[in-house]
């Protein structure tokens, strides 16, 4: 199955792109997507544990399974204010 990753903030620098398409096995979770990104992008791998994921307008648990066509946002450490 295929999911789309939106890279917010510095995560776009770590992954070299704002938008990434990942091919994952059926039943893959958010953690599996993060693992796949970490394998592809060393700069992301170094920050993997500080990154949350969101779907729609909510933070999502990375242990939940994804569906084909899901759009997942990478939320790196925030610096609002």
């Amino acid at each position, binding site marked *: 199955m295929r999911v789309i990753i939106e890279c917010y*903030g510095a995560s776009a620098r770590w992954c070299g792109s704002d938008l990434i398409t990942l091919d994952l096995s059926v039943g893959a979770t958010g953690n599996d997507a993060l693992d796949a990104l970490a394998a592809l992008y060393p700069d992301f791998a170094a920050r993997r544990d500080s990154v949350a994921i969101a779907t729609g307008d909510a933070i999502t648990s990375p242990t939940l399974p994804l569906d084909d066509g899901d759009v997942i946002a990478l939320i790196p450490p*925030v610096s609002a*204010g």
Partner: protein
Amino acid sequence: MSAIKSLPRLRNGALNLADWLVEAQPADAGALAVFAGTVRNEHLGNAVSGMSYHAHRGLAEARLREIEAAAEARFKVHVLVAHAVGVLAIGEISVVVVIRGGHRAEAFEACRWTIDTIKQAVPIWKEEHYVDGAVRFLEGVPIQPVESL
């Protein structure tokens, strides 16, 4: 509830403080506490020329409203917040917190808690522009749920 409460809390460009002070003071309130964050010309020894604010707009808007509601419930005050997105110059306002409450103790506490929570729970990222031409995202903190703060 005033008209301003129906506007988005995330705004394009620098905030104008006066826009966020138009609500009337409630008759039972004796304190108005306001915090505004502005762009500084220096960060960790580097000369800064401006700041870009990036956001996950949907989640940031939801989180700003969630923080307003949480602060109102926690401190029994009226709360209004706003945050800028886009490129801001030195001295321009990136974030505003307005608290209207009975007495100054809870107004100050609510104001401090609200800005501290915005900084840890809202998906916004600062990208500093340095005088030497470099651009860099600031280090941040892993995003926290509002209810944990």
